[in-house]
């Protein structure tokens, strides 16, 4: 009886070790689970009843997810970009540019472009959102054009876009400070079941859509194909330039949605600092999620898990009182550890 139990135990561990070695995504999920357990312990059980503990635990989770929904959406787009063999450094800056356009359109006061011609309220918000997505797609197309048609390395093209977008936005907006009308705030702050969870729902909805796109559409599969072998893809009739342009345009559109959530959530935008570091956090989430930096391999689910690891870890470090300056170092360690694991998998 005892030996049987032992056997079962060793079988379980053998299975664990084998799965760990064979599949880096498995180890990533394990890492997330471990981190969730630690975070739960750190949160403590010092509550009068299970109900109250559960409420506090849930609230903490909602906070984590809500705070990371914006970057999470950017990371979803970044997954496509990296799978296609590229990179997009411009996301933080384009978000600011898109944000400025949206703010100018929705402002109900003197600064508002639409209110000046008599459009206010919901129609103005709709126009602003559509225009914002339009600007995002357009900026993405610019990067895409440089990369696909001019053969520029994605790093350089998007570095240029990054500098241009933030700088021009700051210059244009230095004397104008549009305000966000109350109605627009509802986009992110409407309470559902007493909690502010709309940003989380947007994130999950987009993740679900992009998962389907990545697995079940010609475009999605072509992104994988060109990331793995551009020449073969071209010789199989894939319009490589068009697909690449669309990948960056999609990224731009998603950045616009993040900008919308950001504005609606906070009610303002800091053109100098908002979104800075988004590109690196998004890339980190994508890499931790098992997407290959050289393209051709990766998944949307992986990126969601990668984002959760970063988010839960940040929360955990916060709970146990690690000073904020040090927290970035942990992010670095996680990224390096993730890539080491993937390396091991590919050599196996």
């Amino acid at each position: 009886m005892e030996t049987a139990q032992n056997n079962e135990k060793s079988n379980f561990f053998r299975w664990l070790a084998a799965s760990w070695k064979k599949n880096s995504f498995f180890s990533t999920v394990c890492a997330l689970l471990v981190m969730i357990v630690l975070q739960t312990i750190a949160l403590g059980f010092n509550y009068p009843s299970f109900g109250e503990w559960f409420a506090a635990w849930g609230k903490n989770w909602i906070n984590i997810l809500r705070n990371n929904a914006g970057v999470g959406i950017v990371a979803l787009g970044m997954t496509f970009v990296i799978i296609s063999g590229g990179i997009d450094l411009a996301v933080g800056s384009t978000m600011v540019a898109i944000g400025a356009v949206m703010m100018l359109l929705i402002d109900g006061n003197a600064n508002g472009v639409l209110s000046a011609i008599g459009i206010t309220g919901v129609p103005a918000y709709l126009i602003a959102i559509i225009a914002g997505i339009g600007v995002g797609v357009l900026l993405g197309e610019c990067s895409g054009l440089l990369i696909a048609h001019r053969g520029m390395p994605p790093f350089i093209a998007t570095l240029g876009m990054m500098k241009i977008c933030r700088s021009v936005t700051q210059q244009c907006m230095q004397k104008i400070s549009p305000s966000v009308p109350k109605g627009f705030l509802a986009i992110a702050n409407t309470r559902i079941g007493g909690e502010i969870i709309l940003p989380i729902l947007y994130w999950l909805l987009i993740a679900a859509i992009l998962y389907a796109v990545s697995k079940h559409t010609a475009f999605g599969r072509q992104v994988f194909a060109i990331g793995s072998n551009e020449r073969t893809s071209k010789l199989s009739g894939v319009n490589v330039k068009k697909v690449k342009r669309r990948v960056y345009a999609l990224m731009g559109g998603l950045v616009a949605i993040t900008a919308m959530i950001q504005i609606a959530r906070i009610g303002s935008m800091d053109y100098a600092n908002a979104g800075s570091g988004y590109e690196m956090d998004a890339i980190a989430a994508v890499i931790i999620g098992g997407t290959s930096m050289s393209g051709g391999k990766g998944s949307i689910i992986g990126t969601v898990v990668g984002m959760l690891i970063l988010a839960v870890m940040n929360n955990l470090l916060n709970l146990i009182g690690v000073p904020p300056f040090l927290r970035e170092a942990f992010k670095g360690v996680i990224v390096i550890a993730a890539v080491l694991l993937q390396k091991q998998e590919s050599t196996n």
Partner: protein
Amino acid sequence: MKLEMKNICKSFGSNDVLKHVDFHLNEGEICALLGENGAGKSTLMNILGGVLEADQGEILLDGKVHSFRTPLQSLDAGIAFIHQELNLINDLAIYENMYIGRELKKPSGLLDHRRMIAETEKVFERMALDISPKTLVRELDASYKQIVEITRALLMNAKLIIMDEPTTSLTDPEIEHVFSILRTLRQQGVGIVFISHKLREVMEICDRYTVLRDGNMVSEGMVSEVTTSELARFMVGHDVRSDALDLENNRGDACLQLKGLTREPYFRDISLTAHKGEVLGVTGLLGDGRSELFSTVFGAEGSYTGEIDLDGQRVRMHSTEQAIKMGIAYVPRNRKENGIIKDMTILENGTVVSWPRLTKYLFLDHKKQKREFEKQKLALHIKMGAENDVITSLSGGNQQKIVLAKWLSENPKVLILDNPTQGVDVGAKEEIYDIILALAKAGVAVIVLSSEAQEIIRVCTRALVMYHGGIIGEVSGETMNEHAIMRLATGG
């Protein structure tokens, strides 16, 4: 320095590559080393260059026995090996390339640029070359790069230079330029082994020839005493056409017509017609421009001059997407780089061309995708595990069939195959030939590009031979034999 290689044997596993081969070279002599691919030329020269060790036999330099275990030992003995891919760094100056790895230094440890430049100038003078050692290699044309490699060999006091197909990437005037340098070297007593497929060049520059076939030395003698057609026969042995084709009466209307197609520097003024129901071969040596010609026809390369007619309609090819819509299919050469997507599954590799067509309401119709793939899998006898396994789990032959499968689902009018049996074992080769013939019988215009004469003879109704970017001749029926193809391909 006189070189003698006696009774050299070398085998890889059970494969005897060299069987008791003798080779010799006198001072100030240019000797051609001839043979088909796989005849053992490279192995023999790699033994001389210290890259490989012989199983048996000896190497004598001026009567003294040497054995070379590393390329460095061979170089020290005065033997330089210039490979087909040049070993130069484009972004460094000529003189820096000359001394790379053995730079001259001042006592202080800093580089002695002045002396390196002066030494390089001295060698250039000896060769009557008028170029500055400070020129960047990038700025040189292909012949000068070749010459820089030769002079580097001289700088290392080489008495014997092995050149592996030195002219494949050169134009005619450039070749002449390199040849004049070789003549100068011959006068100065340097011995040169000249490996080439181009018999016309051999006749022009070489004194003597040695022909290898299947690891045996089959013939040697003075170049002045043979003709190119005799050399071609020595290389291939005898003429064989193993399969009589009953496609001769199957030829239908003209399907693909090219008129004066040109894209410098790859090919010029190409006119040809491929008919429905025939297998048209296009052959020649490496670098003859046939691959570039047909990837241009497929719309993968962009601009060209001249005209392309498809079923009598004038078309302008600018993308592969468009070519596919018009019913052209293209199986490229170098399967690994151009044919398969290694991170994707067998199913996806076999259907990648059809994704846009298989899209229904924005999403891929996976059921239809599987159904179509299954049909091709049965038709082509593809042996495979699960369709969601990665493509690299298959053998070369089955991978190639997957590449074929992705095209056949599109029911092409014109099927272009570049080196269709590269890296495919003998059994699968025959199967692929059968597939090609069956498609032609069904009315597809099939075009097979290959440098293997046997392959052309086996499957093609007729074949065009290309040389240096132009069509030099056509063979069919009685005239289609290895000998005739080899003679045309070498420019004769």
